[in-house]
């Protein structure tokens, strides 16, 4: 079967976000069938059989996650749609919400029917004002056309959908942080277990799924689990949105089958490294992933292959760096981000991200010591797997891999009194006093 785009085929058309347009392309037919013809358990089994894996970062099998939700409870159940999209290098869910909001709503309906959920909250990052308005308009239309509300699409199924805007905090992308934020608190993650599927939003069983994950559902019902599993590798199949940014000629979102080669993605789809320069480094799955060197880029972009290559698909946010990039500066930028975004609950994360930023900073400004390189590894060892949520790991993975794989950049910065950019700006200051920070 040739590859068919499901998220982006019409994004260049004027009214692609409208209900009329969506319905003219067969939109809401699968939701209608799910509501009127399918049994919930069969929906869950189909999604399991399709082997749909979460697109938010962790790659957990979606059907399996739904299966964890208790069937008989006297509490309401909720769906929390993760539209926080805050992983650096990621900008794909935004495209779905702005250009194809009804696809997301159709996926939401299918998920809610499968799990027996009657209220879904879409947690969208606060900065996406345009996207939130687009979504709200789509939801309003869906209510007025009887797609949402008391009798969804003519069935006896009731479903409410509420857009909940975040307010600027990366940590609210982490699922328990997001739930805490919806409840009206500071978005601090909670220890698992209990997992959200058992005890989530308002203490009730809650499914958390990413926007792109849910947007796969109508297509799975349309072509069936067996056909879906044939798209890309069987272990992590499906159509996928890949984000490419940084030093490429044509940054953007590319819809391709899972398993496309990273090299092809960069060279063909994103137009290659910009300005005719050479490739130096790539972070393949959002800034939380281990970095790859130019030589390591002949790898398939799917969950298993990238794990085997010692990194991860994560959010599929590919950040490309050309030969002029100083990896000390790159590390400093990334560590500043994680230090800023740590919610501060766990000592290894709060202190560790601060240390990593400090170390990167002093190397960048000419106060680094060669022992600092081992110190980075040591700090990372004390962070990974020792905290409430995975933000600490997300900071440690790029840190340890950048220092290990690009050691020569760090040694040079230590010997030359700072990173090339710093030395250029402060020629008289080599080995400078400003370094003690």
């Amino acid at each position, binding site marked *: 079967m040739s590859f068919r785009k499901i998220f982006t085929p019409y994004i260049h058309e004027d009214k692609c976000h409208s209900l009329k347009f969506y319905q003219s392309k067969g939109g809401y037919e699968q939701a209608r069938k799910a509501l009127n013809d399918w049994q919930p358990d069969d929906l869950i089994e189909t999604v399991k059989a399709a082997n749909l894996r979460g697109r938010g970062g962790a790659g957990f099998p979606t059907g399996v996650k739904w299966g964890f939700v208790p069937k008989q409870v006297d509490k309401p159940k909720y769906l929390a749609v993760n539209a926080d999209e805050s992983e650096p290098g990621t900008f794909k869910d935004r495209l779905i919400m702005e250009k194809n909001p009804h696809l997301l709503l159709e996926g939401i309906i299918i998920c809610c029917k499968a799990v027996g959920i009657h209220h879904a909250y879409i947690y969208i990052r606060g*900065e996406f004002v345009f996207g939130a308005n687009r979504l709200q308009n789509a939801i309003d239309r869906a209510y007025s056309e009887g797609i949402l509300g008391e009798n969804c699409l003519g069935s006896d199924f009731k479903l409410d959908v509420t857009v909940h805007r975040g307010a600027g905090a990366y940590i609210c992308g982490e699922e328990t942080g997001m739930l805490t934020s919806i409840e009206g608190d500071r978005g601090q993650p909670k220890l698992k277990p209990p997992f959200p599927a058992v005890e989530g939003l308002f203490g009730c069983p809650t499914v958390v799924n990413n926007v792109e994950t849910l947007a796969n559902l109508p297509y799975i019902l349309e072509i069936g689990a067996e056909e879906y599993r044939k798209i890309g590798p069987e272990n992590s199949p499906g159509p996928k949105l890949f984000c490419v940014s*940084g030093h490429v000629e044509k940054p953007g979102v590319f819809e391709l089958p899972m398993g496309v080669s990273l090299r092809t993605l960069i060279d063909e789809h994103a137009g290659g490294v910009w300005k005719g320069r050479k490739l130096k480094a790539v972070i393949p799955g959002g800034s939380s992933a281990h970095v790859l060197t130019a030589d390591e880029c002949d790898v398939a972009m799917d969950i298993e292959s990238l794990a085997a290559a010692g990194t991860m698909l994560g959010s599929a946010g590919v950040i490309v760096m050309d030969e002029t990039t100083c990896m000390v500066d790159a590390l400093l930028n990334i560590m500043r981000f994680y230090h800023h975004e740590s919610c501060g609950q766990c000592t290894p994360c709060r202190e560790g991200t601060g240390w990593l930023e400090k170390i990167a900073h002093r190397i960048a400004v000419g106060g680094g010591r060669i022992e600092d390189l081992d110190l980075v590894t040591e700090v990372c060892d004390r962070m990974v797997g020792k905290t409430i949520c995975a933000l600490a790991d997300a900071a440690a993975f790029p840190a340890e891999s950048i220092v290990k794989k690009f050691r020569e950049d760090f040694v040079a910065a230590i010997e030359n009194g700072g990173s090339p950019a710093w030395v250029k700006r402060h020629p008289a200051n080599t080995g400078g006093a400003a370094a003690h920070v």
Partner: protein
Amino acid sequence: MTVTETLAFSDEAMKKYEWLLSRYPTRKAALLPTLRIAESEFGELGVPQMKYVADLMEIPPATVFGVVTFYTHYRRAGVGKYHLQVCSTLSCALRGSGDVVSRVTERLGIGVGETSECGLFTLSKVECLGSCDTAPVIQCNDDYHEGLSLEDVDALIEQLRQEAGKGGA
């Protein structure tokens, strides 16, 4: 009369607030969106505005302050009419966001975190805005300005000045 007593939601805002309450099983869950209403009703979230929301929702003021200060995207007191938020995370940094910050600094004579004397502009560095393919990016109030050259930065500032001169928003 204190400032707090003079603050009040308009009827329309109050309707919106009541609708919000109907969307959640707990009152507190409506806090984040209610703060958005307060932000647009009052123009900023300073202490009196936060206190108003706390009273309205019967949530302890300390809780409301704690929530507002946890997040970076609420419009806090003292921010200029135009809040220029330059994304400085990796993909934008790779494509020149540092130069964008310098350009704004040069043109407006303000550093990061400062507000221009005329009260029109505040400059901030922010983290990834989810628009890395169009780096470098500035979010000005609600709007994204993407793929900016330094000339675009100048033009944006000029356009905002004119808009302000006309008394526009």
